[in-house]
Each structure stands twice: as C-alpha cells, then as structure tokens.
C-alpha cells in the first residue's frame, strides 16, 4: 500500500471545485469523476471534500443561488418573513430550487453582515436590509435578466466609533506604504523585538502574543515558511474583518509583509471566506497595487530586501475552517478538519512547514505597531491587554457597526454608544463566547473579564434566550467538522436537550446534566469548537437564574419524568384517521 504522501498534490482541488460549481451550478457525478481522474483519487475522496463544504452542491443549485443566513441577528431582524417572500417570489422551497432551476434558495450560517440584517447572498453578491417588498422587486428584476452585480447593495463602512487620533490604532488615516517605511531601518530581529515590546496579542480569539509567535517561526530551521492570514471570520455576529478587508486592505497586506520579513517566509495566503467573495475583486486589486509599487514580489525594499508573494484562496462555506489547522487542511485540498495537535503551526503548519497564522485584525494592528512604535501602542489599554480592539456590534441597538475601543472600556459605555435600549443580554464573542447580563458587575473588555473575540451581539427584553441558545446549538451541530465524538455527537445531543427544555419538559436534573455533559465536551473535544460549544448556555444559566428557573422546574415528586403522551400518540392517530376507508393496494 502506498502512503498518502506519494499521491498527487491536491492544493488546487478547492479551486477546481469552485470553477465547476460556478459554471455548472453544481458538482455532478461527471464532475466528481473528472476530478478523481485528474488528482488520481478515488471518487469517494472527492465526494468527501465536496460534502464538507456548504457551498458545493451535488444537485443543481439554480442559476441564481440565494443564501439566506440563519444567524440569531438575522432571525431577530425578520428573516423568517424574508425567507417566505423568497419562496413565494421564486417558487423555490428553502433547501431546493424552483422547478425550472432558475432560483436555488438555501439557508447558511452567518454571512458577516450582521449590521445590515436581514441580509442574503445571491450568487455571492450581498443584499442587505431586505424587506418582503424588496425581495419581490429583486426577484422580478433578476427574472428580467438584470445582472446580479448591478443589483447588489453597496456595503456601508459603518464605522461607528473612532477613538481620538492620539489613541486610535487601527482606524486612523492610512497612507499606503507608510507602515513599511521602518523596514528600511530595521532588521528582522528588530521587527520582532518591537512587536514583543508592544505586547500585541492575536485578535482571532486565542490571544497568543504576536511577537512570540513570529519569533518561534523565525527560529524554525529551513527556509520554506508561510504566512497565513485568517480571513474566515465565521463566528456569527463578527464582521470587523470584513470592514478591514474592504476599507483598509493595504493595512492588512502590510502586516503580512512585516510578518514575512520578520520570519523569513516568502509566500502568504489570505484565506477568504466564500461569504466574502464579493470582496475578492477589490482585494485582488489591492494586492496588485502592492506588486505595482514593488512592495510585493521579489526585492521588497527593506534593510535586507526580501521576496514575498500573496495569494487569495477562497473557502467554501465551513465555519471550522477558521480554526488554523483546519484552514491549512482546507488549503491543501482536504476536508477542513482540525488536525491533531502534535505540532504547533509555527513548527509544522501548511504543507508541514513552519507557518504563522494570524487574524486579519492582528496583521493590521502589527503594521500599526511598526508605524506608531511599540511604546505608544503599549501605553494604550490595560496592563494585560495592550492597545485597542475592533468590536462588531449588532443586534438590538440603533447604531450597529464597527467600533474601535481601547482595552479596558466598560461594556455599559459601549452599549450607550450603540444606543442599545432595554437590553436583556449581550453575547460576547459570538456563539462560542459568553451570554451575559450587562448589568451584572459592570463588566469591561479585558483579559480577566470580557476577553472579547470581536463580536458583541445585543438582545433586548423582547427576545427569547432559549431560542437564541437553540440557534447556537444547531449552528455547532451543523458546523462541527464531525471528526471527534464529543463535538459531533455532543452538539447533536444538546440540540435535543434544548428542544426538551423548549417544550417545557425540563427539570432540575437537566440543569445538572447540562453541566456534566458540557464538562465532558470541554475536556475531550479536539479543537475549540467543541470545547466552547456550550459556553453560551452555561454562562446564560449562570447569569439568568430567574429566567431559567422556569425551564428547570423541580423534579416530579413521584418520579414521573416529563413525557408528553398526547404528542407521542399523535402520529398513530393521524395514520388511523388517514387510512380509514382506504383500500388495500398490495
């Protein structure tokens, strides 16, 4: 038997699948056969990749493929009515195409437009602030042949809060090339020590010190190293990377150039989530502009000139690909499953070579550190969290959008800026974060308090917490990569548990079980997805004991479990009634 490593390189597989999907509107059996032959793989392996990614369809997905998103904020902004309007206007049921194959209508996870909900993608172009009337008009125009691109909305910047110029880090005037100037004076070692001195940490959720990560990569032997910009931004409610990529792509690119210089990497990728495909032309133009100026390619001006290339591959609809090792697998043309942690990416990452993975915002902030200096950066924020952070604020507030705040800012202040009224709960860092009562203990954004990954989603007193948590639960059950038991089965089991609570069948025992089961998932899951999946539920139970006491009523004294007999026999009754008087058809 041949080891898998002898097989042909499959790095271009996702690209090829995209080409087929976009042209033929699905990946047919023939398409699978062709690719299997091209890559010398068995068909089932291609099938395995295709079925992993949400945006690859095995059945035709319509000339116009519509993805409505089922994030909590979308649902709260009236998505159910939008879905009905699409169904009515297109004749397609959700999850299918209409009989003529013109329109395909599908649900998908958050598409990174939470400040503009209800929103959808049509052929990967964004449509925001939808209303049933708008949907009708839109479908009518599409039927008349108006190109989708022409109809798509411009996406506003929605920069809501900018720090005063002396405190702003990211959102301040940007002159392309400005952050690269220091490279003429600094050698890589000095870049590293600047970053280390700044205290900048990663912004993608794990908060690993950036200087240290880059140094670890630099210290690895060999000269084949890679820079990977994580633009997968899949955490529902997060859209700050979208804003950066759209309005400050140069800053992100410059951050990657710094990383390349500091680590010795010669190639970089911006792994762009397919939901942001509409950003691709602008982003490619931005990269091209850097090549034009000689800031990318061979001989990049610096104290010791270097070479660096950037490519922009696309994801294909999988939240878990935001996990760094899953992303590397995805880039390699595999299913986007997180790897077993035998090595850190800086030791063995993409193609088993040392790789720096950072979030979009991290690269942008790193570039700014070089520009404004470590000292000025480190003077901002708190002792443990230096500098600033972008927040994506959405949900029940008047001013959703992107806010740059200094670490240490109080949540109450942020809610005021956003004009959030009658706030019941705030979801910090998306579904994998905490669901908290903002009035409880005056929380602020800091290491030991709200270590926020970027999303702040606001729910007012009209909202049903359990429904929100149920939405999160199915998100994880769908988006789990499925490779490890606790996350694949555990999240599924949790959806059932929450259904049980929603039916009013919960008891005090369930409260204890939720804690026990969550602990099991936290201790055993391979990656952060499974470990964090019940975090929101646990924190909500802790912060809203009054609300939950209704769901966890005392255990029945006689030992009767809640069981709805009427519901359990209803299928039988229906069948009996339906078949009354029907004739046998053998």
């Amino acid at each position: 038997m041949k080891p898998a490593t002898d097989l042909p390189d499959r790095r271009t597989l996702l690209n090829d699948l995209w080409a087929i999907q976009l042209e033929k509107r699905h990946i047919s059996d023939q398409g699978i056969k062709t690719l299997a032959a091209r890559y010398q793989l068995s068909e089932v392996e291609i099938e395995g990749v295709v079925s992993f990614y949400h945006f690859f369809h095995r059945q035709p997905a319509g000339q116009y493929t519509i993805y409505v998103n089922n994030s909590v904020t979308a649902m709260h902004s009236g998505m159910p009515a939008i879905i009905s309007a699409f169904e009515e206007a297109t004749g397609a049921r959700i999850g299918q195409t209409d009989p003529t194959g013109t329109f395909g209508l599908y649900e998908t996870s958050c598409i990174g437009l939470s400040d503009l909900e209800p929103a959808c993608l049509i052929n990967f172009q964004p449509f925001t602030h939808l209303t049933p009337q708008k949907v009708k008009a839109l479908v009518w125009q599409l039927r008349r042949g108006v190109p989708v691109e022409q109809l798509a909305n411009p996406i506003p910047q929605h920069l809501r809060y900018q720090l005063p110029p002396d405190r702003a880090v990211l959102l301040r005037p940007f002159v392309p090339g400005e952050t690269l100037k220091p490279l003429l004076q600094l050698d890589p070692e000095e870049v590293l020590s600047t970053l280390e001195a700044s205290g900048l940490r990663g912004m993608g959720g794990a908060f690993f010190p950036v200087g240290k990560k880059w140094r670890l990569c630099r210290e690895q032997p060999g000269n084949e190293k890679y820079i990977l910009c994580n633009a997968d931004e899949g955490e529902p409610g997060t859209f700050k990377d979208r804003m950066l990529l759209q309005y400050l792509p140069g800053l992100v690119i410059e951050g990657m150039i710094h990383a390349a210089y500091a680590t010795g990497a010669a190639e970089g990728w911006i792994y762009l989530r397919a939901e942001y495909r509409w950003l691709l032309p602008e982003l490619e133009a931005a990269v091209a502009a850097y090549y034009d100026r000689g800031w990318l390619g061979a001989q990049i001006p610096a104290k010791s000139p270097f070479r660096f290339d950037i490519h922009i591959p696309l994801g294909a609809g999988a939240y878990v690909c935001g996990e760094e090792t899953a992303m590397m697998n995805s880039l390699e043309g595999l299913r986007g499953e997180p790897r077993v942690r035998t090595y850190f990416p800086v030791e063995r990452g993409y193609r088993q070579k040392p790789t720096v993975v950072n979030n979009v915002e991290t690269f942008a902030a790193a570039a700014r550190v070089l520009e404004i200096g470590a000292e000025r950066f480190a003077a901002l924020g708190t002792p443990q969290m230096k500098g600033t952070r972008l927040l994506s604020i959405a949900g029940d507030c008047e001013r959703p959008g992107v806010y740059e705040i200094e670490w240490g800012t109080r949540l109450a202040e942020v809610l005021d800026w956003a004009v959030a009224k009658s706030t019941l709960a705030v979801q910090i860092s998306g579904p994998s974060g905490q669901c908290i009562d903002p009035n409880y203990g005056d929380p602020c954004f800091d290491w030991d308090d709200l270590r926020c990954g970027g999303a702040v989603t606001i729910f007012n007193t009209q909202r049903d917490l359990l429904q929100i948590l149920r939405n999160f639960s199915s998100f994880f059950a769908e988006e789990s990569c499925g490779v490890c038991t606790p996350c694949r089965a555990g999240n599924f089991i949790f959806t059932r548990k929450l259904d049980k609570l929603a039916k009013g069948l919960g008891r005090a025992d369930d409260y204890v079980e939720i804690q026990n089961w969550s602990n099991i998932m936290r201790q055993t899951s391979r990656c952060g997805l499974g470990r964090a999946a019940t975090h929101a539920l646990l924190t909500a139970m802790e912060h809203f004991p009054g609300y939950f006491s209704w769901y966890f009523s005392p255990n029945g004294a006689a030992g009767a479990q809640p069981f709805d007999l009427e519901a359990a026999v209803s299928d039988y009754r229906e069948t009996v009634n339906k078949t009354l008087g029907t004739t046998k058809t053998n």
Partner: protein
Amino acid sequence: MAKAVSIQIDGIEVQAEEGQNLVDAIRGAGVFIPSLCYYEHIQPPLGTCRVCTVLVNGKPTASCTATVRPGMKVVTQTKELEDVRKGMVEMLFAEGNHFCPACEKSGDCDLQGLGYRLGVTATRFPHLFVNRLIDYRPERMVIDHNRCIRCRRCVEEVRTDAGKAVFSFVNRGKDTEVAIDYKAETELTEAQALQAMHLCPVGAILVRGKSLARPVGERKYDQTEQGWEKEEGAIEVPTPKPGAPKKVVATTSLAGCFGCHMSLLDIDEELLDVVELVDFNKSPLTDIKEFSRRCDVGIIEGGCCNSENVEVLRAFREHCDMLIGVGECAIWGGLPAMRNFIPIEECLLEAYGRTTELEDSKVVIPKHEDLPELLDRVYGCQEIVRMDYFIPGCPPDARHIWKVLKHALFGQPYALTHEEFKYD
C-alpha cells in the same frame, strides 16, 4: 534507539521512551487506559474517539495524541476523568444504533468491550435514533452505518494497490459518516478486504461470506482476555432477619418479549427460597392485575411502545418504592427500538395494510378505545419515569437478577461485576 526518560503517571515516577505514544507508555506502566481509534502505526494518530482522555501537565488531552516528553506529569485516574471517559463511550452508544444481540462483532467488539469494562449499564444521553444506512451496494462488503463509530481507521488504512483510498468521511457535523468507494472496493484483494473488516473496532465493515464470529471462549473479550483482571470472589448475599415481614414485589412486561421474565424463573429450585422471602403482588407470575398494596420493588421488563405501557409504568412508579429495569429493552428500548427508524405510518401499513388477509380488502388499522395507542417510537423506561436501577443483559441471567434483587431488598444495592454482566 529511543532514550528512556522518566515521567510521572498518577504521582508515580516511571520510565518511558521519549517520543513514545503516551497510551503505550501508560499501559507499559501497568495502568489501564481505554482506547478505540488508536491504531499503533497510524501517524499522526487519529485522535477521533477521545476515550483515552487524561490530564497531561494539568491539561485534558487525548493520550494517544501525545508523546512522552521528559518530566511530563500525567493523571489518568480521577473520578472526574473516569466519568468523562465513560461519558465518551456512552455517547457513542447513544449516537449509533447498537443492537448487540444481532451483531456479528459481539464479543470481539472494542466498543462493547469497553462498555463492559467501564461499567456502562445505561447511557446518560438520550439515544438519538437516527435512521442510518446499511449499505449493501459494495460488491464484496456490507457497511453498517448504525455501528460505525467514525474512528477513521478504515479511511487512513485501507487502500488499493494503486494507492487509492477506499473509505472517506463524507458530510460534516452531526451528519458525518464514512462512505465507501464502490469502484475502489472491487479492486481490493481478498486479504485487503479482510484486513478492513478486522481493523474496524466495531462491526461496521463486514465482508460477505466471511464470518466474523469466533466461538465463544476464543473471542477478543471472552473472559480470559489478557489485561482484564478477573473479578471474582463470592459476594455475600444478605438474608433477611428472622421474623421480618416478607417484602412485596411486583413485576411487569412492557414492550419486551417475556424473555426477562423467563430468565427470572430460571433459578429452578431456588425459586422456593424466593417464595419464602417475598410476596408477589401485581405480576404476570401471579396474574394479579391491579396493585392491591404498596410494593417494595417493581421489576420492569421492556420499554414503552404504546400508551398502555406508559400508564402501567407510571402506576408502577406510583406504587413501588423502588423500580428496577431488567434487560436492554427496559434500559433504552432494545430490539423493539429497531422500529424507531421507520415512520409509524409505514409500520402500520406494513402490518395491517399489506400483509393481513382481510376479505373486504380494506385497510383496517385496529382502533378502539380499549386498545392501547402506539407511540411514535419505543422509549426506554427512564424517559417516562425515574428508574432506580438497571440490570443489563438480553436477557440478564437469572442468578444476577435475584442477586441484585436480594441486595436491593435486604441490604445495599451493588453494581454487577464485569464478568457477571457479559452477555454477548
């Protein structure tokens, strides 16, 4: 030559090879650690099942994914870790559809073996009852998705001579499963096909015409299997104080086959002793139909498949101080739960629409106010009422039922030992 280094396992310094897989190092130190997906020569390790979770330097880690490093501190045995690992096995049982009595791998199955070993009687999780495929399309194999634990061994290991993968994971999230390549499968040699069947830790890969079954006594988990300490020693059965009042027992068979009741009677002459000790109230054994007094213990065979079962079970809960579920059907539905994957309409039409000989050729599904109504699926007893104890088995052995019962009635309840409750 690997360097011997010293590491700590549960507070004890032991020597292990640097770089060695931690599972092997733990086992080398004579400490039991379960595993399911771990397959020695697959690198990097699969790390899918997570039943080998331990603490490495305080951090929960799947031990098969860690390698020995000097000075590492490993904790394997805490109450919490044991519960967590057992939880993993329970989760796999809840996720799949494991009808062991009908399974070719029974007795040789790693999942089943671990279930016994870790003392899983009932899973704490609700059974998901997802309708899964038994794939008969491959030429040479049958793939039973009900039993697959997605360990990934077959995906990594089974390749044709041309190097093509025969298995792959497909879909993702809760729908993740293993699929087989029908073309590549035909290219496997007989030996490769058999290898696939044998590397599968459960009974998900079967090769047509090749029996997995080995005679009892020769199977992997038969009692002499090395590394499994034999649990022995007579357990003292408590006896009632002389002159104490007789205990009152009720029994019922819900959606079961009466097999557990038959087993109950299987103690032969000892039955006479039993009659000395207990009085039977409502029970098919006495033909008493209604409870006439409060009972100490209710013995339940079978799960609930219709409205009458639910009512009877609830009445038992109300009239008995303690409820003991006997057999797999009571625990989670058992064999009758095989119908849980079929919509009730289809079940009823199959039974009354297509197969009965009715003269007027009308579909008549019996319905009368005196007839119980069918539930949408078969439920385990603890989904309806709180249960106090379960005695696993299909059916459990008579001696064990009585041993548990006597303990429950006259002394402390005790968990059956592994040897006792193996029924594969």
